[in-house]
């Protein structure tokens, strides 16, 4: 008799076994794809943390860029090792986020959206404008790869080929996801969820919304900064266009299509859509249009995201079987709960 916990553990082991074997079965550009997918998973899961507190910002991808540029510059100019620059870039991102959270969080609803868009674009344009130190429109090149040494090794191993880098990324991202997951199931996670579902009720029992928004923003920024560092040291070059609003929109689509109520939602979203994107690789030109359509269809017909499909299907099956349907009156994730204000 397998109980839930054991089956969960077995599932994870199976997943990891699959992930470990996978790259060896793929072609080169598919291995690339896999690395980017894993990095993007970290991006969306960290973004979702912010959306739990009701903040849909448009600055997230730019913060990824902040992480990328920080790590790259620290490595190039100061010669620091990747293992140092990566966490440092996360911290720098958190600091930038805190800096902007003071002005931004005073804005309501979509003033915040526009404000975060403006702040992000201003940062990004600074990378374009200031050739020193950001390299201007062409960006930074020759970003050093991570090096790996242990005693007894004559020369450090450089990690730049897809498969080794894949394992590096997999390890780092898994660790980050584990931390985020633990946070999700902690007291803080409960508080964040309570803000997500009924912020007014949460306030009435003493939960300081502003404090938790800032916390979520800071933590989310830390991890997206790390994602940026991972990206920078794999590509070896970065430029401002990689962090433009178009990419931010993709993140939005992944998160919305996947759903934000559960931890796995955004992961499902980004994975499914990235794979779909790969299928349509031949239709390069049509891809944004397809994405646009998916976004619209998703918002109109499946606003709770892919993650809600299992329970929706269960509901359909129950109805077909004639079982009594429980009235699930879950408020629209998107709609701002119009309290009696």
């Amino acid at each position, binding site marked *: 008799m397998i109980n839930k916990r054991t089956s969960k553990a077995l599932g994870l082991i199976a997943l990891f076994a699959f992930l470990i074997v996978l790259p060896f079965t793929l072609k080169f550009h598919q291995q690339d794809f896999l690395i980017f997918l894993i990095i993007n998973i970290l991006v969306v899961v960290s973004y979702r943390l912010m959306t739990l507190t009701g903040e*849909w910002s448009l600055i997230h991808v730019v913060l990824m860029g902040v992480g990328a540029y920080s790590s790259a510059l620290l490595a190039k100019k100061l010669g620091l090792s990747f293992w140092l620059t990566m966490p440092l870039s996360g911290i720098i991102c958190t600091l930038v986020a805190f800096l902007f959270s003071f*002005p931004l969080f*005073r*804005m*309501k*609803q*979509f*003033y915040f*959206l*526009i*404000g975060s*868009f*403006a*702040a992000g*674009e*201003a940062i990004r*344009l*600074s990378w*374009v*404008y200031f050739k020193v130190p950001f390299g201007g429109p062409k960006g930074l090149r020759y970003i050093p790869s991570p090096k790996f040494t242990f005693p007894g090794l004559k020369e450090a191993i450089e990690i730049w080929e897809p498969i080794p880098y894949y394992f590096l990324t997999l390890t780092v991202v898994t660790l980050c996801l584990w931390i985020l997951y633990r946070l999700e199931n902690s007291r803080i996670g409960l508080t964040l969820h309570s803000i997500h579902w009924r912020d007014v009720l949460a306030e009435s029992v003493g939960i300081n919304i502003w404090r938790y928004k800032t916390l979520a923003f800071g933590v989310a920024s830390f991890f997206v900064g790390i994602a940026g560092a991972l990206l920078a040291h794999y590509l070896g070059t970065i430029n401002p266009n990689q962090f433009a*609003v178009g990419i931010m*929109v993709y993140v*939005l689509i992944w998160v*919305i299509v996947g759903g934000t109520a559960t931890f796995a939602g955004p992961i499902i979203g980004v994975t499914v859509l990235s794979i779909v994107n790969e299928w349509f690789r031949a239709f390069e*030109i*049509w*891809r*944004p*249009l397809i*994405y*646009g*359509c998916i*976004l*619209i269809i998703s*918002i*109109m017909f499946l*606003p709770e995201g892919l993650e809600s499909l299992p329970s929706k299907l269960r509901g359909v099956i129950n109805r077909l079987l004639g079982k009594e349907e429980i009235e699930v009156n879950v408020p*629209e994730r*998107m*709609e*701002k709960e119009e309290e009696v*204000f």
Partner: protein
Amino acid sequence: MEVVFQTCVNALVASGFFALTAVGLVLIFGVMGIINFAHGELFMVGAYSVWYLYSISGWPFFLAVVGALVIVAVIGLLMERGLFRPMRNNPLGGLINSIGVLFILQVVAVKVGGLGLMKHVPPAFPGVVQIIEGVVLSKQRLVALIVSAVLLLFIWLFLTRTKLGWALRATAQDREAAALQGISINRISMLAMGLGAGVAGVAGALMAPLTRVQPYMGHSVIIAAFIVTIVGGLGSLSGAILAAVLYAFFHTFVTTYFGGIIATILGLLIMLVVLIIKPTGLMGTQTTE
């Protein structure tokens, strides 16, 4: 000194474009409460329409502009009916939908325009007008300025002197109250969207001979439009026009002396400051909590 005058003249022309696009955005937001992220793309479609109708199909210039107005207005109406109306009580959903449209329109432009992305539209009114020694204004730009001013005047008169315009303003102020008075919200929304989109289309149409027409030209337009509408006040038309003129002068002068990118960065920072200090903008009214 001539540089200053020349820059002033350029700024004046720019303010026409900024005002038109901003007014469109404010109309849509004011009546439907939705921020139309695809507004720059509506501008872009206007430009493409002129490219196609005027420089490819040989229509007279002004007819092509009218054609652009119609095309973009129709797109706007479709957007309202299919995407914004179901999201009337969900502004974030409406915004997301507009982002979807943004992508779709860009791809359509790439498809229609073909692979050589940047299109050149020859000026309909070649030649320049000399204002004073050393300061010139191309006739094409003069035409653009005049048309913008006339169009804005029409809109002003429409909103303040006609019954329909009054109904639109009432809906923008208080949707429920307007509905109670028998105003059809659906019809007013369509009107606002058609007008708002159409105006953006005209701006793009007028811009077509003055710049390169390419699928991503909407990007800088939407940024400027946001800055102008926020600074002017999201719900205020007069604010938008005032802010458009101010921002046009600011942007043109900074661009002339320091460059376009710095101008945009500073513009964004100004917008941030306004959002922090007085989010309702220069002329927006303080809504009660």
